[in-house]
């Protein structure tokens, strides 16, 4: 039960999860292609935040050795999630770029961004 009472816990993970849910909600219910892509981006951001949060260490510093902190290895935050999130962000960017280009093409052909009007492939 105490895990629910830790404010910082709630704040960080809560906002990350909330971000994910907002993104998912947008992606799942909005009718505009742009909004759907935005929803996916928000979803992505939420996950990235989550990843970073997992690697965080209380009172930790960035995992960069600079003159003066070379012996502070034990208080450095976990670098792996950061490296992973870097990769994830770039990949997310690539996907978003492709998504937007698809949106452009759909718009070019259908003259609308509403998915309920783009239904060549429905039944």
């Amino acid at each position, binding site marked *: 039960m105490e*895990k*629910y009472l*830790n404010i*910082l*816990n*709630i704040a*960080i*993970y*809560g906002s*990350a*999860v*909330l971000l*994910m*849910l907002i993104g*998912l*909600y947008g992606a*799942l*219910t909005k009718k505009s292609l742009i909004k759907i892509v935005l929803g996916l981006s928000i979803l992505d951001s939420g996950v990235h935040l*989550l990843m970073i*949060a*997992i690697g*965080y*260490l*209380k009172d*930790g510093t*960035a*995992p*960069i*050795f*600079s*003159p003066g902190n*070379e012996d502070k*290895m034990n208080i*450095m935050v*976990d*670098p*792996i999630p*950061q*490296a*992973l999130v*870097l*990769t994830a962000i*770039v*990949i997310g*960017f*690539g*996907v978003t*770029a*492709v998504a*937007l*280009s*698809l949106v*452009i*093409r759909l718009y*070019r052909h259908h003259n609308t961004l509403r998915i309920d009007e783009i239904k060549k492939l429905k039944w």
Partner: protein
Amino acid sequence: MKKVIVLISLGILGFYLIDIFLGIGFGVPHFTNGVKDLYLSNSKDTLKVSNVVTAIVVNFRGFDTLGEVTVLFLASTALGGILYKKRHHVGERSVLFPASQVVMSGAKLLFPSIVLLGAYVFIHGHLSPGGGFQGGTIIATGFLLMLLTYRNYSVSHNRLVYFESLAGILFVSIGLVGYFSKGSFLENVLPVGNMNELFSGGVIGIIYIAVGFKVAAELTGIIYTVLHEKD
């Protein structure tokens, strides 16, 4: 109806996610004998790289980065394919009308500095929070600024291809050099130097430069393609 279903589902999902992550906990060490410590110590002692994230991204998990570069390359290729039209017309334009004189002149002066900043960021990738992706992105935003400001500023497509290809070839070649000389793909073949100096970390710097160029060229290509997507 649909919204209700979505809301209920997301509610349950949210509950599970919160439950999972609160269980995992924030800001506390989660595991005892993970690879994290190995990464930190090896980065400091073996590679002499001060930015551990960079050491991970470029060396320990450099293969991921190769994939990541490929993803970006693929995205720009796919995007080019998706928005492909027959050869662009002469006199095409990136924007409908130029920006004001102030912005144009401002951008003109700023542009080389932005490129320099990008280069700085990826050259110092192993020393600072920067890296190839960040630097490449900065350079690409410089091009974005130019493309947005000038009506008919054109980036030489061939030059982009050269940069992109050569950078990619460089990356893989460094990997292959490692494979053929040391027996392991992407293994460091250069002296690692001293901590916190520019020339340290062996091939990491070179790889990050390649990545920087590649990312810059790719993102610029993407921006270019998208901006010219007008009838």
